[in-house]
C-alpha cells in the first residue's frame, strides 16, 4: 500500500500538554507581566500587554515543544483570536462606558419629549448657577433622525436589494454588471460630506437654491447607504447554493418567484445584518446633514418642507457651539445623552433585524 511519510505518534494521548500546563503558563505570565510592568512603572495597560504577550508566547512554545508545530500553530491562532476579541472589546467598553457615564445623567422624560425651542445660554447659565435640572431636550432631533433615516432606508433598501439581485441573479457577469459592481465599490469611498454637497446641489438646481429639507438629507444618506446594502446583499446572495435555485426551477417556479421566495429568504439573515449595518453607518452621519437638512431647535415633522434637526447634528452643535459658551456643561450633558439615545436606537434596530432574521432564517435543525 501507499507508503506513509507521516510522522505520527503511536498513541492517542502521548505528547499532550497536561491540563494544568496552560494554567501554569497563565499564572507565570501574570506574575512576570506584573514584574516587567513594574520595571517600567506599573500600569494596567502595560501589565495587560506584557501578560498577554508572555502567555501567547509561553503557551505556544510549550505546545510546540511538547505537541509539535501543528498544535502550536493551532494554539497560537486560538490565542490570537481570543486576544483579538478581547482587544476589540477594549474600545467598545471604553466608548460605551464613556457614553453611559456622561449620557445617563442627561436622560429624562423632559429630555426625550421636549425640543430646544426657547433655549438660550441664559437658561443654561441659570441652571448652572441654581444647580437645577438641565432644560431642553432632543425630541426634535430624535424625530428628525427617525424620519430622515426612515426615508433614507425606504430609498436605499429597495434599490440596493434589487441591484444586488440584478448582479447576482440576472447579469451573467456582463459589462454593465461589472460596471455596477465596480462603481458601487467606488461609491463606498465617497466622503460623507461630498454626498451631502451633491444632494444639496442637486435639489438646489431642481427646487431653487437653499432647498434644505429632511428629504434632501435622506437622499444624501442614501448615496452613502446604497453601496453598503448592495455590497453586503450581493455577498449574501452569492453564497446561496445553486442547488436550491435549481430545485425551485425544476418545480416550474419562475425565476423572480424563486428569487423572492427561495433565494432571498435563505440569505435573509445576512441581508438583514447588512441593512442594519448600512443604517448604523448613516444614522450617525453629521457632515452631510449639516449641509442638507439645515439646523433648527424646534420640532418639524415634515420631511418635505422646512429645516430639520437630527441627533448627530444636535450632538455636534451642542459640542462644537454650546448653547452657553460660558457654561458648557449643560450642552455637553445634552450631547452625551443624545449620543446614548442614538446608540440605543441602533441597538433596538439591531434587535429588530435579528428578529427578522430569526423568523426567516434557514432552519438548521440538522
Amino acid at each position, binding site marked *: 500500500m501507499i507508503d506513509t511519510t507521516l510522522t505520527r505518534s503511536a498513541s492517542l494521548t502521548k505528547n499532550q500538554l497536561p491540563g494544568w500546563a496552560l494554567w501554569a503558563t497563565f499564572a507565570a505570565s501574570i506574575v512576570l507581566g506584573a514584574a516587567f510592568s513594574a520595571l517600567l512603572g506599573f500600569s494596567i495597560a502595560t501589565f495587560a500587554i506584557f501578560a498577554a504577550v508572555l502567555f501567547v508566547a509561553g503557551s505556544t512554545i510549550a505546545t510546540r515543544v511538547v505537541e509539535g508545530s501543528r498544535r502550536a500553530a493551532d494554539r497560537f491562532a486560538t490565542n490570537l483570536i481570543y486576544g483579538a476579541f478581547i482587544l476589540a472589546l477594549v474600545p467598545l467598553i471604553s466608548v460605551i462606558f464613556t457614553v453611559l457615564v456622561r449620557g445617563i445623567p442627561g436622560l429624562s422624560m423632559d429630555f426625550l419629549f421636549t425640543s430646544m425651542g426657547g433655549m438660550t445660554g441664559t437658561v443654561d447659565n441659570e441652571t448652572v448657577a441654581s444647580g437645577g435640572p438641565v432644560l431642553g431636550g432632543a425630541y426634535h432631533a430624535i424625530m428628525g433622525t427617525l424620519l430622515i433615516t426612515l426615508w433614507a432606508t425606504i430609498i436605499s433598501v429597495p434599490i440596493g436589494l434589487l441591484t444586488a439581485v440584478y448582479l447576482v441573479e440576472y447579469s*451573467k*457577469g456582463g459589462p454593465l454588471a461589472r460596471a455596477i459592481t465596480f462603481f458601487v465599490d467606488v461609491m463606498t469611498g465617497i466622503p460623507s460630506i461630498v454626498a451631502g454637497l451633491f444632494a444639496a446641489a442637486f435639489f438646489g438646481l431642481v427646487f431653487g437654491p437653499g432647498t434644505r429639507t429632511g428629504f434632501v438629507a435622506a437622499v444624501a444618506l442614501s448615496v452613502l447607504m446604497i453601496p453598503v446594502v448592495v455590497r453586503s446583499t450581493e455577498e449574501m446572495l452569492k453564497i446561496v*447554493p445553486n*442547488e*436550491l*435555485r*435549481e*430545485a*425551485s*426551477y*425544476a*418545480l*416550474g*417556479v*419562475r*425565476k423572480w*418567484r*424563486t428569487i423572492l*421566495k*427561495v433565494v432571498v*429568504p*435563505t440569505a*435573509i439573515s445576512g441581508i438583514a445584518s447588512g441593512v442594519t449595518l448600512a443604517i448604523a453607518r448613516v444614522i450617525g452621519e453629521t457632515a452631510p446633514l449639516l449641509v442638507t437638512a439645515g439646523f433648527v431647535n424646534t420640532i418639524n415633522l415634515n420631511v418635505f418642507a422646512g429645516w430639520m434637526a437630527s441627533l448627530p447634528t444636535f450632538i455636534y452643535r451642542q459640542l462644537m457651539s454650546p448653547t452657553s459658551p460660558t457654561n458648557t456643561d449643560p450642552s455637553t450633558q445634552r450631547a452625551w445623552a443624545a449620543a446614548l439615545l442614538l446608540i440605543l436606537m441602533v441597538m433596538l434596530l439591531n434587535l429588530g433585524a435579528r428578529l427578522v432574521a430569526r423568523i*426567516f*432564517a*434557514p*432552519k*438548521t*435543525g*440538522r
Partner: protein
Amino acid sequence: MSKRIDVKDLNVYYGDFLAVEDVSIKIDARSVTAFIGPSGCGKSTFLRTLNRMHEVLPGARVEGEVLLDGENLYGPGVDPVTVRSHIGMVFQRPNPFPTMSIRDNVLAGVKLNNKRISRSDADDLVEKSLTGANLWREVKDRLDKPGSGLSGGQQQRLCIARAIAVSPEVILMDEPCSALDPISTLAIEDLIEELKSDYTVVIVTHNMQQAARVSDKTAFFNIAGTGKPGKLIEYDDTTVIFNNPTVKATEDYVSGRFG
C-alpha cells in the same frame, strides 16, 4: 396526461465543451426509461436538457430538438418555466429548501407559484405525496419541523414527494435512490411503477438491477475517453439491453453484475 418525448440530433455543450453528442431517442408515454452508463458519460447532462434545466448553468447550451408530443421544447416562444412545470425533476443530491418546514417543502411547487389551495386540499396533497415517497410514516408528527433536519435518505424522499406534488406529465429522476436504503428504494420503485400508468418517467441509475426491475426501455451511454463527448450507444427494450445487446460495449457494461 402522459407525454411522449422525441429527441432529435441533440448536442449538449458546456461553453465550448461538447459534453453529449448527437443523441436521438424516442421515449414513449406511460413508460419508464432508464439511462445507464459509466460516470461522466453525460447522463445527468442529457437528462437536464429534457426539461431545459441545462440552460440554467452559465454558458450551457444545446443544439437540436427535443419534442414533447411533437412540440419542440427549444422552439421559439417556448417558455422554459412552462416546460419545467410539465416535466418535473428529482436531483442526484437531495436539496430540500432550508427555510421551509417539511410540509412547506412538499407544497413548495404549489405555494411558490402562488397557486391558491385550501387547507384541507393542501393537507391531502402533503399526505398523498409523502406517502407516495414512503416518508409519511416517519415525518407525519413533525411536518412543521425544518426539512434540513432529516437524514440524507429522508431528505431525498422529501424531494421526491415535492416533485410529485405538482403532478407533472413527465418525471425526470437523476439517481433518486443512490442515497436510499433498500426499503425506501423499494418504495420508490413501487412508486415509479405506479407513476408509469399515468406519467412518463425517465430515470438515471447506476444500479443495473434497478434498471432491470423498473424500466421498460434502457438507454446505454458511454464515453470514449476524457474530454470526449458522451454518446448514446444503444437504446432498446430493457430485456434486450440486459440479455441480448447488439453492441459489445453494452454487453461488457451490463454483464459486470454490479451494484
